């Protein structure tokens, strides 16, 4: 299995990142719920994390080399086969350990979501987000979900529920639920997945899938059998969710899926399959790339991660039997064509809702804001006028004329940016700083120091993003207020 050294840098960052975040989530839970009843499970999780970290640090010289070289543009240096196997084995062990331990978080008290995540949802989903109709909770599965709690209630058969709950046939007694993985509570980059999940919520209420599949049938000029319609609807629901994610959050809406797929990819030798609903990650990435291209969004700053995943999955696909490869190609072709047909209908439907659409300007601003993030500044607001035009106008004043200059202070006005732009900036910044952070960590004298450096790097970036999101509702309210 080939691959340039920079490829392994991108591959490695995902499991390493998540292991560090998991440990930090467990240590944090120790602070706010000190009950000894949880001590045994917490201690065991921490012990396993420590053992895993020790194994990673055994390969520190190799990781240091990877990140030192990954930072150099155009580096095509390759690892020897023995080195590559060693890196892959330790990443498999890290990713596998993380996924198992994350499920064990079920046994710890469930934390509530962060205030900033609620702000993110309120700002991104606007009037469509009604916390009296949709709950947002954390889950011990390393995944994200949207489902109707009423549907769950209908499946409950215990007598106690039958007597105690309100009539589940009444319209939406419990509303919907969106779930985010516990480890992502403090990981704002991962919150973008909720834009996809919110697409499911919107779809269930507004019937986007139904209309899109009807349109598909009409374009095919045929009456589709009920069974085929149901299969297409299952497919289309995910396309609606992906498109909603892109509509609201732009290309970064796919980053959580790419990270999740990268982790799964580390653990298994076969490529991730189309499961009857979700297209293979490579297909979904191609759809997002196509949308970005059409919208004039240059995603090269994110493409390292996406490209690494596509390369990994492509490599595994070549190991499959010929008929399996042909089947994957067929599914990919059908899904991308289906996507092309249903997309205009879905986008038109999304346009009927009061939702802020992510556009090429949003991505450009995200790119610009990532520079401020790199300077250690919160990015919840940005100048309305460019630095150049403000400077030119202020310098154009003849001589020292304070009243005239004061009149031009409006040129320094700042307004709230969108939460989607903040998350975009955070993703770009993370990818830009990854090699430096990990390179510095693996240059440390001990494993403890190395992982402290990584954790501190994440925390300082995340804190700035939380601050940025925190200020947006207040700034928006200020801008909206008269005068």
């Amino acid at each position, binding site marked *: 299995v080939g691959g340039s050294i920079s490829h392994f840098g991108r591959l490695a960052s995902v499991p390493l990142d998540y292991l560090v975040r998991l440990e930090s989530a467990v240590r944090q839970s120790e602070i706010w719920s000190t009950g000894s009843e949880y001590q045994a499970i917490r201690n065991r999780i921490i012990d396993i994390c420590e053992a895993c970290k020790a194994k990673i640090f055994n390969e520190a010289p190799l990781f240091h080399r990877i990140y030192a070289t990954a930072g150099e543009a155009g580096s095509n240096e390759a690892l020897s086969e*023995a080195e590559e196997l*060693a890196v892959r*084995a330790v990443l*498999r062990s890290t990713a*596998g350990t993380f*996924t198992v331990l994350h499920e064990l978080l079920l046994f710890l008290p469930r934390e509530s979501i962060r205030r900033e995540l609620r702000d993110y949802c309120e700002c991104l989903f606007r009037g469509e987000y009604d916390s009296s109709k949709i709950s947002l909770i954390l889950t011990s599965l390393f995944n994200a979900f949207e489902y109707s709690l009423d549907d769950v209630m209908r499946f409950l058969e215990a007598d106690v529920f039958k007597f105690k709950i309100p009539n589940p046939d009444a319209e939406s007694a419990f509303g919907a639920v969106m779930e985010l993985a516990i480890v992502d509570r403090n990981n704002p980059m991962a919150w973008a997945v909720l834009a996809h999940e919110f697409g499911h919520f919107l779809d269930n209420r507004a019937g986007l899938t139904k209309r899109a599949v009807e349109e598909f049938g009409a374009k095919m000029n045929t009456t589709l059998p009920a069974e085929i319609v149901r299969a297409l609807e299952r497919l289309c629901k995910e396309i609606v969710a992906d498109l909603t994610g892109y509509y609201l959050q732009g290309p970064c809406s796919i980053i959580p899926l790419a990270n999740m797929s990268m982790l799964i990819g580390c*653990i*298994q*030798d076969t490529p991730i399959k189309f499961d009857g609903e979700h297209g293979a990650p490579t297909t979904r990435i191609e759809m997002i790339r196509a949308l970005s291209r059409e919208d004039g969004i240059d995603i090269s700053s994110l493409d390292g991660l996406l490209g690494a995943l596509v390369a990994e999955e492509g490599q595994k696909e070549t190991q499959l039997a010929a008929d399996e490869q042909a089947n994957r190609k067929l599914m990919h072709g059908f899904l991308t064509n289906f996507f092309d047909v249903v997309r205009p209908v879905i986008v038109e439907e999304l346009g009927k809702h009061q939702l802020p659409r992510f556009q090429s300007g949003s991505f450009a601003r995200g790119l610009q804001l990532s520079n401020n993030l790199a300077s250690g500044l919160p990015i919840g607001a940005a100048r309305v006028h460019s630095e150049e035009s403000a400077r030119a106008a202020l310098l154009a004043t003849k001589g020292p004329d304070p009243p005239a200059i004061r009149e031009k202070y409006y040129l320094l006005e700042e307004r709230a940016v969108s939460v989607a732009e903040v998350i975009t900036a955070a993703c770009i910044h993370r990818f830009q700083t990854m090699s430096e952070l990990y390179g510095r960590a693996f240059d440390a004298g001990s494993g403890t120091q190395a992982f402290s450096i990584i954790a501190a790097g994440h925390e300082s970036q995340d804190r700035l993003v939380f601050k940025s999101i925190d200020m947006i509702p207040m700034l928006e309210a200020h801008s909206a207020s008269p005068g």
Partner: protein
Amino acid sequence: MHYDIQLGFLAADAISEFSRAAKTKEPANYEAFLEQSTSYCREFRSLHSRPAETDISAAMPKPVADFMRAVVKTRPPTPAVTVKLEAVGAVEKLLQSIREEQRQPSDDECLRIARTIYSTSAAEPR
């Protein structure tokens, strides 16, 4: 998917020793690689092995043998695990012959062992 943390740690340890041996060519690293590989194979077998028809000896009392047969039928290993067990079995034989011949493994043998450990440590999709 099912993933075993302990087995994954053993695989990482063995392959890490292989990488070190390939770089240093030190006998101690080769020795550590062989030891870790043996531990991995042992753990793999204890984790995945199921009783087979051949484990039921003729000397066994009939009720015990019948019980064993019933167990064999109810818990057959999956095809993927069967393939992996065969691969691990082949590596165990190779490790044993290297030990018996009291020699250092060749580069090709090392690579074969490491590749098998890596591929058998993969989780199977559900």
